[in-house]
Protein backbone atom coordinates (compact mmCIF):
# COMPACT_ATOMS: atom_id res chain seq x y z
CA UNK A 1 0.00 0.00 0.00
CA UNK A 2 2.75 2.44 1.04
CA UNK A 3 4.71 1.55 -2.10
CA UNK A 4 1.69 2.28 -4.33
CA UNK A 5 1.17 5.60 -2.54
CA UNK A 6 4.82 6.50 -3.12
CA UNK A 7 4.69 5.53 -6.81
CA UNK A 8 1.56 7.63 -7.40
CA UNK A 9 3.15 10.55 -5.56
CA UNK A 10 6.31 10.27 -7.69
CA UNK A 11 4.19 10.12 -10.88
CA UNK A 12 2.22 13.23 -9.84
CA UNK A 13 5.42 15.11 -9.08
CA UNK A 14 6.95 13.99 -12.38
CA UNK A 15 3.95 15.22 -14.37
CA UNK A 16 3.88 18.58 -12.50
CA UNK A 17 7.58 19.12 -13.00
CA UNK A 18 7.39 17.98 -16.64
CA UNK A 19 4.60 20.48 -17.30
CA UNK A 20 6.56 23.31 -15.70
CA UNK A 21 9.71 22.45 -17.68
CA UNK A 22 7.60 22.19 -20.85
CA UNK A 23 6.15 25.67 -20.21
CA UNK A 24 9.59 27.17 -19.60
CA UNK A 25 11.02 25.60 -22.77
CA UNK A 26 8.03 26.97 -24.67
CA UNK A 27 8.72 30.40 -23.16
CA UNK A 28 12.35 30.27 -24.30
CA UNK A 29 11.16 29.31 -27.78
CA UNK A 30 8.55 32.08 -28.08
CA UNK A 31 10.50 34.97 -26.56
CA UNK A 32 11.30 36.37 -30.01
CA UNK A 33 7.74 35.74 -31.14
CA UNK A 34 6.52 37.85 -28.21
CA UNK A 35 8.75 40.78 -29.24
CA UNK A 36 7.51 40.54 -32.85
CA UNK A 37 3.94 40.35 -31.60
CA UNK A 38 4.36 43.51 -29.54
CA UNK A 39 5.70 45.29 -32.64
CA UNK A 40 2.81 43.99 -34.72
CA UNK A 41 0.26 45.19 -32.16
CA UNK A 42 1.79 48.67 -31.96
CA UNK A 43 1.34 49.22 -35.71
CA UNK A 44 -1.59 51.17 -37.13
CA UNK A 45 -4.57 49.02 -38.06
CA UNK A 46 -5.41 49.39 -41.75
CA UNK A 47 -8.82 47.77 -41.79
CA UNK A 48 -11.21 47.61 -38.87
CA UNK A 49 -13.53 44.61 -39.20
CA UNK A 50 -17.05 44.99 -37.85
CA UNK A 51 -17.42 43.60 -34.33
CA UNK A 52 -20.41 42.71 -32.15
CA UNK A 53 -19.86 42.27 -28.45
CA UNK A 54 -22.52 40.30 -26.61
CA UNK A 55 -23.08 41.09 -22.94
CA UNK A 56 -25.23 38.36 -21.39
CA UNK A 57 -26.67 39.52 -18.07
CA UNK A 58 -28.48 37.80 -15.29
CA UNK A 59 -28.86 39.89 -12.13
CA UNK A 60 -25.86 42.08 -12.84
CA UNK A 61 -27.26 45.47 -11.76
CA UNK A 62 -24.18 46.38 -9.74
CA UNK A 63 -21.54 45.92 -12.44
CA UNK A 64 -23.42 46.10 -15.75
CA UNK A 65 -23.23 49.88 -16.31
CA UNK A 66 -19.47 49.95 -15.87
CA UNK A 67 -19.11 47.00 -18.24
CA UNK A 68 -21.09 48.72 -21.00
CA UNK A 69 -19.33 52.05 -20.46
CA UNK A 70 -15.96 50.31 -20.76
CA UNK A 71 -17.10 48.82 -24.08
CA UNK A 72 -18.29 52.23 -25.31
CA UNK A 73 -14.91 53.60 -24.29
CA UNK A 74 -13.08 51.12 -26.56
CA UNK A 75 -10.67 52.80 -28.94
CA UNK A 76 -12.40 51.44 -32.05
CA UNK A 77 -14.44 53.06 -34.83
CA UNK A 78 -17.97 53.43 -33.47
CA UNK A 79 -19.58 52.48 -36.78
CA UNK A 80 -17.79 49.14 -36.68
CA UNK A 81 -18.62 48.24 -33.09
CA UNK A 82 -22.00 47.06 -31.85
CA UNK A 83 -22.94 45.98 -28.36
CA UNK A 84 -25.74 43.48 -27.85
CA UNK A 85 -26.85 43.30 -24.23
CA UNK A 86 -29.12 40.35 -23.41
CA UNK A 87 -31.12 40.29 -20.22
CA UNK A 88 -31.58 36.64 -19.37
CA UNK A 89 -34.69 37.07 -17.21
CA UNK A 90 -33.01 39.03 -14.41
CA UNK A 91 -34.99 39.53 -11.23
CA UNK A 92 -33.05 42.57 -9.97
CA UNK A 93 -32.55 46.03 -11.46
CA UNK A 94 -30.55 44.81 -14.48
CA UNK A 95 -33.25 45.89 -16.96
CA UNK A 96 -33.41 49.33 -15.37
CA UNK A 97 -29.66 49.67 -15.81
CA UNK A 98 -29.93 48.58 -19.44
CA UNK A 99 -32.75 51.04 -20.08
CA UNK A 100 -30.24 53.89 -19.70
CA UNK A 101 -28.63 52.76 -22.96
CA UNK A 102 -31.72 51.93 -25.00
CA UNK A 103 -31.33 54.92 -27.33
CA UNK A 104 -27.62 54.51 -27.81
CA UNK A 105 -26.88 53.95 -31.52
CA UNK A 106 -24.26 51.28 -30.81
CA UNK A 107 -26.33 49.28 -28.33
CA UNK A 108 -29.11 46.75 -28.93
CA UNK A 109 -30.98 45.41 -25.93
CA UNK A 110 -32.64 42.01 -26.01
CA UNK A 111 -34.72 40.45 -23.28
CA UNK A 112 -35.76 36.86 -22.77
CA UNK A 113 -36.89 34.44 -20.13
CA UNK A 114 -34.18 32.95 -18.04
CA UNK A 115 -32.59 30.04 -19.82
CA UNK A 116 -28.92 30.16 -18.95
CA UNK A 117 -25.95 32.05 -20.33
CA UNK A 118 -25.61 29.98 -23.50
CA UNK A 119 -29.21 30.73 -24.52
CA UNK A 120 -28.61 34.46 -24.06
CA UNK A 121 -25.47 34.23 -26.19
CA UNK A 122 -27.27 32.28 -28.90
CA UNK A 123 -30.12 34.80 -29.06
CA UNK A 124 -27.61 37.57 -29.66
CA UNK A 125 -25.69 35.45 -32.18
CA UNK A 126 -28.85 35.27 -34.31
CA UNK A 127 -28.82 39.08 -34.55
CA UNK A 128 -25.09 39.50 -35.10
CA UNK A 129 -24.20 40.45 -38.68
CA UNK A 130 -20.62 41.53 -38.08
CA UNK A 131 -17.34 39.94 -39.19
CA UNK A 132 -16.35 39.23 -35.62
CA UNK A 133 -18.41 38.47 -32.57
CA UNK A 134 -17.35 38.36 -28.98
CA UNK A 135 -18.62 38.02 -25.49
CA UNK A 136 -17.99 40.06 -22.37
CA UNK A 137 -19.32 38.90 -19.03
CA UNK A 138 -21.28 41.66 -17.28
CA UNK A 139 -18.90 41.64 -14.33
CA UNK A 140 -15.87 42.52 -16.45
CA UNK A 141 -14.32 45.68 -17.89
CA UNK A 142 -12.16 46.07 -20.97
CA UNK A 143 -9.10 48.25 -21.38
CA UNK A 144 -9.70 50.91 -24.02
CA UNK A 145 -7.13 49.38 -26.37
CA UNK A 146 -8.19 45.75 -25.80
CA UNK A 147 -10.00 45.31 -29.11
CA UNK A 148 -7.15 46.93 -31.04
CA UNK A 149 -4.82 44.37 -29.45
CA UNK A 150 -7.05 41.55 -30.66
CA UNK A 151 -8.20 42.50 -34.15
CA UNK A 152 -4.73 42.31 -35.84
CA UNK A 153 -4.58 38.58 -35.04
CA UNK A 154 -7.47 38.07 -37.47
CA UNK A 155 -5.21 39.23 -40.33
CA UNK A 156 -4.16 35.60 -40.29
CA UNK A 157 -7.08 34.05 -42.09
CA UNK A 158 -6.68 30.77 -40.25
CA UNK A 159 -7.24 32.43 -36.85
CA UNK A 160 -10.79 31.72 -35.73
CA UNK A 161 -10.81 33.05 -32.16
CA UNK A 162 -8.67 35.28 -29.97
CA UNK A 163 -8.76 35.22 -26.19
CA UNK A 164 -7.59 38.06 -23.98
CA UNK A 165 -5.51 38.52 -20.83
CA UNK A 166 -7.81 38.54 -17.82
CA UNK A 167 -6.76 40.47 -14.74
CA UNK A 168 -8.39 40.98 -11.36
CA UNK A 169 -10.18 44.27 -10.59
CA UNK A 170 -8.78 46.02 -7.49
CA UNK A 171 -8.20 43.11 -5.12
CA UNK A 172 -9.27 43.84 -1.56
CA UNK A 173 -9.55 40.55 0.31
CA UNK A 174 -6.82 37.98 0.89
CA UNK A 175 -8.61 35.65 -1.53
CA UNK A 176 -8.69 38.31 -4.23
CA UNK A 177 -4.96 38.97 -3.85
CA UNK A 178 -4.39 35.23 -4.25
CA UNK A 179 -6.65 35.19 -7.32
CA UNK A 180 -4.72 38.10 -8.82
CA UNK A 181 -1.58 35.93 -8.91
CA UNK A 182 -3.59 32.98 -10.17
CA UNK A 183 -5.01 35.07 -13.03
CA UNK A 184 -1.54 36.44 -13.83
CA UNK A 185 -0.26 32.86 -14.05
CA UNK A 186 -3.17 32.06 -16.37
CA UNK A 187 -2.14 34.97 -18.62
CA UNK A 188 1.32 33.40 -18.94
CA UNK A 189 0.08 29.84 -19.35
CA UNK A 190 -2.56 30.81 -21.94
CA UNK A 191 0.01 32.72 -23.95
CA UNK A 192 2.29 29.67 -23.93
CA UNK A 193 -0.58 27.33 -24.85
CA UNK A 194 -1.51 29.74 -27.63
CA UNK A 195 1.92 29.27 -29.22
CA UNK A 196 1.47 25.52 -29.36
CA UNK A 197 -2.19 25.71 -30.44
CA UNK A 198 -3.46 24.17 -27.24
CA UNK A 199 -5.97 26.66 -25.79
CA UNK A 200 -8.93 24.70 -24.55
CA UNK A 201 -11.08 27.49 -23.13
CA UNK A 202 -12.35 30.75 -24.63
CA UNK A 203 -13.26 32.62 -21.42
CA UNK A 204 -16.39 34.73 -21.02
CA UNK A 205 -14.41 37.93 -20.49
CA UNK A 206 -13.70 39.16 -24.00
CA UNK A 207 -13.03 36.23 -26.29
CA UNK A 208 -13.57 37.28 -29.92
CA UNK A 209 -14.54 34.85 -32.70
CA UNK A 210 -14.99 35.01 -36.41
CA UNK A 211 -18.78 34.95 -36.84
CA UNK A 212 -18.36 32.08 -39.32
CA UNK A 213 -17.32 29.83 -36.41
CA UNK A 214 -20.90 29.80 -35.15
CA UNK A 215 -22.34 29.49 -38.63
CA UNK A 216 -20.19 26.47 -39.31
CA UNK A 217 -20.11 24.78 -35.90
CA UNK A 218 -23.45 25.96 -34.49
CA UNK A 219 -24.12 28.15 -31.49
CA UNK A 220 -23.12 27.83 -27.88
CA UNK A 221 -24.19 24.73 -25.95
CA UNK A 222 -25.02 24.27 -22.30
CA UNK A 223 -21.67 22.55 -21.80
CA UNK A 224 -22.46 21.65 -18.19
CA UNK A 225 -22.47 25.38 -17.28
CA UNK A 226 -19.15 25.70 -19.08
CA UNK A 227 -20.09 26.89 -22.56
CA UNK A 228 -16.67 28.57 -22.85
CA UNK A 229 -14.84 25.24 -22.48
CA UNK A 230 -17.30 23.42 -24.74
CA UNK A 231 -17.01 25.84 -27.66
CA UNK A 232 -13.20 25.86 -27.37
CA UNK A 233 -13.03 22.05 -27.37
CA UNK A 234 -15.47 21.91 -30.29
CA UNK A 235 -13.25 24.33 -32.20
CA UNK A 236 -10.12 22.33 -31.34
CA UNK A 237 -11.85 19.16 -32.46
CA UNK A 238 -12.52 20.80 -35.84
CA UNK A 239 -8.93 22.12 -35.90
CA UNK A 240 -10.04 25.78 -35.70
CA UNK A 241 -7.18 27.98 -34.60
CA UNK A 242 -7.54 29.78 -31.26
CA UNK A 243 -4.84 32.23 -30.18
CA UNK A 244 -4.28 34.48 -27.21
CA UNK A 245 -3.43 38.17 -27.10
CA UNK A 246 -1.64 38.74 -23.81
CA UNK A 247 -1.70 42.48 -24.39
CA UNK A 248 -5.48 42.74 -24.61
CA UNK A 249 -6.26 43.43 -20.98
CA UNK A 250 -9.65 42.71 -19.48
CA UNK A 251 -10.49 43.19 -15.80
CA UNK A 252 -12.91 40.92 -14.05
CA UNK A 253 -14.61 40.95 -10.68
CA UNK A 254 -13.49 37.95 -8.65
CA UNK A 255 -15.22 36.38 -5.64
CA UNK A 256 -14.32 38.17 -2.45
CA UNK A 257 -15.27 35.39 -0.07
CA UNK A 258 -14.61 31.68 0.01
CA UNK A 259 -18.23 30.57 -0.50
CA UNK A 260 -18.58 32.35 -3.85
CA UNK A 261 -15.13 31.27 -5.03
CA UNK A 262 -15.85 27.67 -4.04
CA UNK A 263 -19.11 27.62 -6.03
CA UNK A 264 -17.46 29.21 -9.04
CA UNK A 265 -14.59 26.73 -9.04
CA UNK A 266 -16.79 23.68 -8.46
CA UNK A 267 -18.63 24.76 -11.59
CA UNK A 268 -15.40 25.25 -13.54
CA UNK A 269 -13.97 21.83 -12.60
CA UNK A 270 -17.35 20.13 -13.04
CA UNK A 271 -17.82 21.56 -16.53
CA UNK A 272 -14.23 20.81 -17.55
CA UNK A 273 -14.49 17.18 -16.46
CA UNK A 274 -17.81 16.64 -18.20
CA UNK A 275 -16.72 18.36 -21.39
CA UNK A 276 -13.42 16.45 -21.32
CA UNK A 277 -15.44 13.26 -21.15
CA UNK A 278 -17.61 14.34 -24.09
CA UNK A 279 -14.51 15.13 -26.13
CA UNK A 280 -12.53 12.12 -24.84
CA UNK A 281 -11.58 11.03 -28.34
CA UNK A 282 -9.16 13.99 -28.40
CA UNK A 283 -7.13 12.58 -25.52
CA UNK A 284 -3.77 11.10 -26.51
CA UNK A 285 -4.74 11.59 -30.15
CA UNK A 286 -1.87 12.97 -32.26
CA UNK A 287 -4.40 14.30 -34.77
CA UNK A 288 -5.27 17.10 -32.32
CA UNK A 289 -1.68 18.16 -31.70
CA UNK A 290 -0.43 19.33 -28.33
CA UNK A 291 -3.90 19.88 -26.92
CA UNK A 292 -4.82 16.24 -27.40
CA UNK A 293 -1.53 14.57 -26.76
CA UNK A 294 -0.43 16.55 -23.72
CA UNK A 295 -2.41 19.55 -22.46
CA UNK A 296 -5.84 17.94 -21.97
CA UNK A 297 -4.41 14.79 -20.30
CA UNK A 298 -2.27 16.97 -17.99
CA UNK A 299 -5.21 19.23 -17.12
CA UNK A 300 -7.32 16.17 -16.33
CA UNK A 301 -4.64 14.32 -14.39
CA UNK A 302 -3.85 17.43 -12.32
CA UNK A 303 -7.40 17.38 -10.90
CA UNK A 304 -7.12 13.75 -9.84
CA UNK A 305 -3.57 14.04 -8.54
CA UNK A 306 -4.60 17.03 -6.39
CA UNK A 307 -7.39 14.90 -4.92
CA UNK A 308 -5.16 11.85 -4.45
CA UNK A 309 -2.26 13.74 -2.85
CA UNK A 310 -4.66 15.54 -0.51
CA UNK A 311 -6.45 12.36 0.57
CA UNK A 312 -3.15 10.57 1.06
CA UNK A 313 -1.75 13.49 3.13
CA UNK A 314 -4.92 13.57 5.23
CA UNK A 315 -4.73 9.80 5.70
CA UNK A 316 -1.08 9.99 6.82
CA UNK A 317 -1.79 12.90 9.14
CA UNK A 318 -4.76 11.10 10.70
CA UNK A 319 -2.57 7.99 11.20
CA UNK A 320 0.06 10.11 12.95
CA UNK A 321 -2.52 11.80 15.14
CA UNK A 322 -3.98 8.38 16.07
CA UNK A 323 -0.48 7.11 16.78
CA UNK A 324 0.20 10.12 19.02
CA UNK A 325 -3.17 9.60 20.71
CA UNK A 326 -2.40 5.90 21.34
CA UNK A 327 0.95 6.92 22.80
CA UNK A 328 -0.72 9.56 24.98
CA UNK A 329 -3.32 7.06 26.18
CA UNK A 330 -0.58 4.51 26.89
CA UNK A 331 2.10 6.54 28.66
CA UNK A 332 0.68 10.08 28.92
CA UNK A 333 2.35 13.20 27.62
CA UNK A 334 6.11 13.52 28.03
CA UNK A 335 6.65 16.96 29.54
CA UNK A 336 10.35 16.41 29.85
CA UNK A 337 11.60 18.56 26.99
CA UNK A 338 15.12 18.62 28.42
CA UNK A 339 15.69 15.20 26.86
CA UNK A 340 14.91 16.61 23.40
CA UNK A 341 17.96 16.79 21.20
CA UNK A 342 18.36 17.75 17.58
CA UNK A 343 19.34 14.83 15.38
CA UNK A 344 19.43 15.28 11.60
CA UNK A 345 18.95 11.54 11.23
CA UNK A 346 15.22 11.96 11.83
CA UNK A 347 14.75 14.52 9.02
CA UNK A 348 12.90 13.20 5.98
CA UNK A 349 15.62 13.01 3.35
CA UNK A 350 13.78 10.85 0.82
CA UNK A 351 13.66 12.15 -2.78
CA UNK A 352 10.16 13.65 -2.28
CA UNK A 353 11.24 16.79 -0.33
CA UNK A 354 13.96 17.52 -2.91
CA UNK A 355 11.49 17.09 -5.76
CA UNK A 356 8.98 19.32 -3.99
CA UNK A 357 11.70 21.93 -3.61
CA UNK A 358 12.45 21.67 -7.35
CA UNK A 359 8.77 22.08 -8.18
CA UNK A 360 8.50 25.12 -5.88
CA UNK A 361 11.56 26.75 -7.49
CA UNK A 362 10.10 26.24 -10.99
CA UNK A 363 6.72 27.54 -9.76
CA UNK A 364 8.36 30.75 -8.52
CA UNK A 365 10.19 31.17 -11.86
CA UNK A 366 6.83 30.87 -13.62
CA UNK A 367 5.30 33.32 -11.10
CA UNK A 368 7.92 35.93 -11.92
CA UNK A 369 7.57 35.46 -15.69
CA UNK A 370 3.78 35.63 -15.34
CA UNK A 371 3.90 38.80 -13.23
CA UNK A 372 6.30 40.38 -15.73
CA UNK A 373 4.02 39.46 -18.63
CA UNK A 374 0.88 40.75 -16.87
CA UNK A 375 2.21 43.87 -15.13
CA UNK A 376 5.26 44.71 -17.22
CA UNK A 377 7.71 44.29 -14.34
CA UNK A 378 8.47 41.72 -11.66
CA UNK A 379 7.10 42.95 -8.37
CA UNK A 380 6.10 40.39 -5.78
CA UNK A 381 2.94 41.46 -4.02
CA UNK A 382 1.47 39.71 -0.98
CA UNK A 383 -0.63 37.57 -3.32
CA UNK A 384 2.49 35.60 -4.25
CA UNK A 385 2.48 34.20 -0.73
CA UNK A 386 -1.29 34.01 -0.29
CA UNK A 387 -1.79 32.11 -3.53
CA UNK A 388 0.22 28.92 -2.87
CA UNK A 389 -0.52 28.83 0.85
CA UNK A 390 -4.29 29.19 0.41
CA UNK A 391 -4.71 27.20 -2.77
CA UNK A 392 -2.95 24.14 -1.35
CA UNK A 393 -5.89 23.83 1.03
CA UNK A 394 -8.82 25.04 -1.04
CA UNK A 395 -8.18 23.60 -4.52
CA UNK A 396 -8.71 20.00 -3.28
CA UNK A 397 -12.05 21.05 -1.75
CA UNK A 398 -13.65 22.18 -4.98
CA UNK A 399 -11.95 19.44 -7.01
CA UNK A 400 -13.40 16.80 -4.70
CA UNK A 401 -16.84 18.42 -4.70
CA UNK A 402 -16.90 18.57 -8.52
CA UNK A 403 -15.92 14.89 -8.78
CA UNK A 404 -18.50 14.05 -6.10
CA UNK A 405 -21.19 15.91 -8.09
CA UNK A 406 -20.30 13.96 -11.22
CA UNK A 407 -20.21 10.56 -9.51
CA UNK A 408 -23.48 11.12 -7.69
CA UNK A 409 -25.05 13.01 -10.61
CA UNK A 410 -25.66 16.12 -8.54
CA UNK A 411 -26.54 19.34 -10.32
CA UNK A 412 -23.86 22.04 -10.16
CA UNK A 413 -25.41 25.50 -10.02
CA UNK A 414 -24.15 28.74 -11.43
CA UNK A 415 -24.50 30.62 -8.15
Amino acid sequence: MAEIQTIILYCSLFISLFFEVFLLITYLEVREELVLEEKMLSQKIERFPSVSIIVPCFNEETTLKKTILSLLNLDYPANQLKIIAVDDGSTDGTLRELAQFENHPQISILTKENGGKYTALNLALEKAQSDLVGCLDADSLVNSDALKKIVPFFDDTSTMAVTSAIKVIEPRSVLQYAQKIEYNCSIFIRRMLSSIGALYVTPGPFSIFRTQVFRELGGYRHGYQGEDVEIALRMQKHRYKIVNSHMAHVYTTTPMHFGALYKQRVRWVYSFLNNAFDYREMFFNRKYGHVGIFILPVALSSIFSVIYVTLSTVWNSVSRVLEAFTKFKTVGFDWNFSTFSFDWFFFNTSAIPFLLLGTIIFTFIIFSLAIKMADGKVRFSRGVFYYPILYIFIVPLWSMKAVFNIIFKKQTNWR
Partner: protein
Amino acid sequence: MIDSKKYIAAFSITAVIFATAIFVSNIIGQKKLEDVRTIENRVALDILSSETQFALLEETSCKDIGPGFLSKELGSLGGKLVYAENQTGFNTEDIDYLKRSYFLLEIKDYLLMKRLTEKCGIKPTFILYFYSTKDSCEDCERMGYVLTALRDKYPDLRVYSFDYHFDVGAINTLVSIYKVKPDLPAMIINTQTYYGYHSVEDLEKSVPALRELARRARLLEASATSTERQN
Protein backbone atom coordinates in the same frame (compact mmCIF):
# COMPACT_ATOMS: atom_id res chain seq x y z
CA MET B 1 2.38 19.15 -36.14
CA ILE B 2 3.80 17.97 -32.85
CA ASP B 3 7.38 18.90 -32.07
CA SER B 4 8.64 15.69 -30.47
CA LYS B 5 12.02 17.27 -29.71
CA LYS B 6 10.41 19.57 -27.15
CA TYR B 7 8.83 16.63 -25.35
CA ILE B 8 12.13 14.77 -25.38
CA ALA B 9 13.94 17.86 -24.03
CA ALA B 10 11.33 18.45 -21.30
CA PHE B 11 11.35 14.77 -20.40
CA SER B 12 15.15 14.67 -20.25
CA ILE B 13 15.37 17.76 -18.02
CA THR B 14 12.66 16.39 -15.71
CA ALA B 15 14.36 13.00 -15.63
CA VAL B 16 17.70 14.65 -14.75
CA ILE B 17 16.03 16.58 -11.91
CA PHE B 18 14.41 13.36 -10.68
CA ALA B 19 17.64 11.41 -10.96
CA THR B 20 19.50 14.15 -9.06
CA ALA B 21 16.90 14.18 -6.27
CA ILE B 22 17.01 10.38 -5.98
CA PHE B 23 20.83 10.41 -6.11
CA VAL B 24 21.11 13.07 -3.37
CA SER B 25 18.52 11.24 -1.27
CA ASN B 26 20.44 7.96 -1.67
CA ILE B 27 23.73 9.60 -0.72
CA ILE B 28 22.15 11.06 2.43
CA GLY B 29 20.44 7.72 3.16
CA GLN B 30 23.78 5.95 2.82
CA LYS B 31 25.38 8.54 5.10
CA LYS B 32 22.67 7.93 7.69
CA LEU B 33 23.15 4.17 7.53
CA GLU B 34 26.88 4.77 7.72
CA ASP B 35 26.22 6.62 10.99
CA VAL B 36 24.20 3.66 12.28
CA ARG B 37 27.04 1.34 11.28
CA THR B 38 29.52 3.57 13.14
CA ILE B 39 27.36 3.43 16.26
CA GLU B 40 27.12 -0.35 15.94
CA ASN B 41 30.88 -0.54 15.67
CA ARG B 42 31.20 1.62 18.76
CA VAL B 43 28.74 -0.60 20.64
CA ALA B 44 30.66 -3.71 19.50
CA LEU B 45 33.87 -2.14 20.76
CA ASP B 46 32.19 -1.19 24.05
CA ILE B 47 31.06 -4.79 24.47
CA LEU B 48 34.50 -6.12 23.63
CA SER B 49 36.01 -3.71 26.10
CA SER B 50 33.51 -4.73 28.79
CA GLU B 51 34.09 -8.41 28.10
CA THR B 52 37.83 -7.88 28.46
CA GLN B 53 37.28 -5.96 31.65
CA PHE B 54 34.98 -8.72 32.84
CA ALA B 55 37.64 -11.33 32.14
CA LEU B 56 39.99 -9.32 34.25
CA LEU B 57 37.48 -9.38 37.11
CA GLU B 58 39.00 -12.64 38.17
CA GLU B 59 41.92 -10.53 39.27
CA THR B 60 40.07 -7.44 40.47
CA SER B 61 36.77 -6.81 42.25
CA CYS B 62 33.27 -5.77 41.25
CA LYS B 63 33.97 -2.31 42.72
CA ASP B 64 36.22 -1.56 39.73
CA ILE B 65 33.27 -1.66 37.37
CA GLY B 66 32.44 1.94 36.53
CA PRO B 67 29.16 3.42 35.31
CA GLY B 68 30.26 3.21 31.65
CA PHE B 69 30.72 -0.52 31.79
CA LEU B 70 27.76 -1.22 29.53
CA SER B 71 27.20 0.62 26.27
CA LYS B 72 24.70 3.52 26.49
CA GLU B 73 24.04 3.70 22.78
CA LEU B 74 21.95 0.59 22.19
CA GLY B 75 18.65 2.42 22.85
CA SER B 76 19.22 5.27 20.39
CA LEU B 77 20.48 2.76 17.83
CA GLY B 78 17.18 0.87 18.00
CA GLY B 79 15.20 4.10 17.52
CA LYS B 80 17.18 5.00 14.43
CA LEU B 81 16.73 1.57 12.90
CA VAL B 82 12.96 1.69 13.48
CA TYR B 83 12.83 5.14 11.81
CA ALA B 84 14.94 4.01 8.84
CA GLU B 85 12.80 0.92 8.39
CA ASN B 86 9.63 3.02 8.09
CA GLN B 87 11.10 5.48 5.59
CA THR B 88 11.54 5.20 1.85
CA GLY B 89 14.94 6.07 0.43
CA PHE B 90 16.94 3.55 2.46
CA ASN B 91 18.39 0.40 1.04
CA THR B 92 16.34 -2.43 2.60
CA GLU B 93 19.22 -4.90 2.34
CA ASP B 94 21.47 -2.52 4.29
CA ILE B 95 18.78 -2.04 6.91
CA ASP B 96 18.30 -5.81 7.24
CA TYR B 97 22.04 -6.24 7.71
CA LEU B 98 22.17 -3.48 10.35
CA LYS B 99 19.13 -4.94 12.15
CA ARG B 100 20.80 -8.34 12.23
CA SER B 101 23.96 -6.79 13.71
CA TYR B 102 21.86 -4.82 16.18
CA PHE B 103 20.03 -7.92 17.46
CA LEU B 104 23.33 -9.78 17.85
CA LEU B 105 24.85 -6.85 19.74
CA GLU B 106 21.80 -6.79 22.00
CA ILE B 107 22.22 -10.49 22.76
CA LYS B 108 25.94 -10.05 23.49
CA ASP B 109 25.16 -7.09 25.75
CA TYR B 110 22.45 -9.14 27.45
CA LEU B 111 24.83 -12.05 28.09
CA LEU B 112 27.42 -9.69 29.53
CA MET B 113 24.80 -8.05 31.71
CA LYS B 114 23.64 -11.46 32.91
CA ARG B 115 27.17 -12.59 33.80
CA LEU B 116 27.78 -9.31 35.58
CA THR B 117 24.66 -9.65 37.73
CA GLU B 118 25.60 -13.23 38.62
CA LYS B 119 29.21 -12.41 39.41
CA CYS B 120 28.67 -9.21 41.35
CA GLY B 121 25.32 -10.08 42.91
CA ILE B 122 23.54 -7.12 41.33
CA LYS B 123 19.78 -7.48 40.96
CA PRO B 124 19.00 -7.89 37.26
CA THR B 125 17.36 -4.88 35.64
CA PHE B 126 16.79 -5.96 32.11
CA ILE B 127 13.83 -6.94 29.95
CA LEU B 128 13.85 -9.17 26.90
CA TYR B 129 11.06 -7.93 24.70
CA PHE B 130 9.69 -9.79 21.66
CA TYR B 131 7.48 -7.98 19.15
CA SER B 132 6.17 -8.64 15.67
CA THR B 133 6.48 -6.62 12.48
CA LYS B 134 5.04 -9.40 10.35
CA ASP B 135 1.40 -9.02 11.34
CA SER B 136 -0.49 -6.02 12.59
CA CYS B 137 0.17 -5.92 16.36
CA GLU B 138 -1.42 -2.95 18.12
CA ASP B 139 -0.37 -4.22 21.54
CA CYS B 140 3.25 -4.40 20.35
CA GLU B 141 3.02 -0.70 19.39
CA ARG B 142 1.59 0.23 22.82
CA MET B 143 4.07 -2.01 24.64
CA GLY B 144 6.89 -0.27 22.74
CA TYR B 145 5.70 3.10 24.14
CA VAL B 146 5.57 1.64 27.67
CA LEU B 147 9.10 0.22 27.47
CA THR B 148 10.49 3.44 26.00
CA ALA B 149 8.83 5.38 28.83
CA LEU B 150 10.29 2.96 31.40
CA ARG B 151 13.75 3.25 29.90
CA ASP B 152 13.50 7.05 29.98
CA LYS B 153 12.35 6.88 33.61
CA TYR B 154 14.99 4.38 34.74
CA PRO B 155 18.25 4.90 32.83
CA ASP B 156 19.68 1.77 34.48
CA LEU B 157 16.98 -0.42 32.96
CA ARG B 158 18.15 -2.26 29.86
CA VAL B 159 15.49 -3.26 27.37
CA TYR B 160 16.52 -5.73 24.67
CA SER B 161 13.91 -5.79 21.95
CA PHE B 162 13.75 -8.49 19.27
CA ASP B 163 11.69 -8.89 16.14
CA TYR B 164 10.20 -12.34 16.81
CA HIS B 165 9.99 -13.25 13.14
CA PHE B 166 13.36 -11.87 12.07
CA ASP B 167 15.48 -14.68 10.75
CA VAL B 168 18.48 -14.66 13.12
CA GLY B 169 19.61 -17.96 14.63
CA ALA B 170 20.44 -16.36 17.99
CA ILE B 171 16.91 -14.93 18.31
CA ASN B 172 15.46 -18.37 17.54
CA THR B 173 17.72 -19.83 20.24
CA LEU B 174 16.53 -17.24 22.76
CA VAL B 175 12.93 -18.00 21.79
CA SER B 176 13.47 -21.75 22.35
CA ILE B 177 15.44 -21.27 25.60
CA TYR B 178 12.66 -19.19 27.14
CA LYS B 179 9.91 -21.08 25.27
CA VAL B 180 8.38 -17.84 24.00
CA LYS B 181 5.08 -18.52 22.25
CA PRO B 182 4.15 -16.43 19.17
CA ASP B 183 1.49 -14.74 21.29
CA LEU B 184 3.01 -11.27 21.01
CA PRO B 185 4.02 -8.96 22.56
CA ALA B 186 6.03 -11.03 25.05
CA MET B 187 8.49 -9.99 27.74
CA ILE B 188 10.93 -11.93 29.88
CA ILE B 189 11.75 -10.32 33.16
CA ASN B 190 13.73 -12.44 35.63
CA THR B 191 12.98 -15.67 33.79
CA GLN B 192 9.28 -14.92 34.13
CA THR B 193 7.43 -14.56 30.80
CA TYR B 194 4.67 -11.96 30.41
CA TYR B 195 2.36 -11.98 27.39
CA GLY B 196 0.17 -9.18 26.06
CA TYR B 197 0.01 -5.52 26.97
CA HIS B 198 1.05 -4.25 30.43
CA SER B 199 0.94 -0.61 31.46
CA VAL B 200 3.82 1.22 33.19
CA GLU B 201 1.91 1.07 36.49
CA ASP B 202 1.20 -2.68 36.11
CA LEU B 203 4.85 -3.44 35.51
CA GLU B 204 6.05 -1.22 38.33
CA LYS B 205 3.68 -3.00 40.70
CA SER B 206 4.18 -6.59 39.60
CA VAL B 207 7.86 -6.77 38.62
CA PRO B 208 10.25 -6.80 41.62
CA ALA B 209 13.23 -5.54 39.62
CA LEU B 210 11.26 -2.48 38.53
CA ARG B 211 10.04 -1.90 42.10
CA GLU B 212 13.66 -1.87 43.15
CA LEU B 213 14.55 0.57 40.35
CA ALA B 214 11.62 2.79 41.35
CA ARG B 215 12.82 2.74 44.98
CA ARG B 216 16.36 3.61 43.91
CA ALA B 217 15.05 6.44 41.70
CA ARG B 218 13.02 7.84 44.63
CA LEU B 219 16.05 7.70 46.92
CA LEU B 220 18.19 9.41 44.31
CA GLU B 221 15.58 12.12 43.87
CA ALA B 222 15.28 12.64 47.62
CA SER B 223 19.01 12.96 48.09
CA ALA B 224 19.23 15.36 45.14
CA THR B 225 16.48 17.53 46.67
CA SER B 226 18.16 17.61 50.09
CA THR B 227 21.52 18.50 48.51
CA GLU B 228 19.81 21.31 46.64
CA ARG B 229 18.26 22.60 49.91
CA GLN B 230 21.64 22.47 51.68
CA ASN B 231 23.19 24.49 48.87
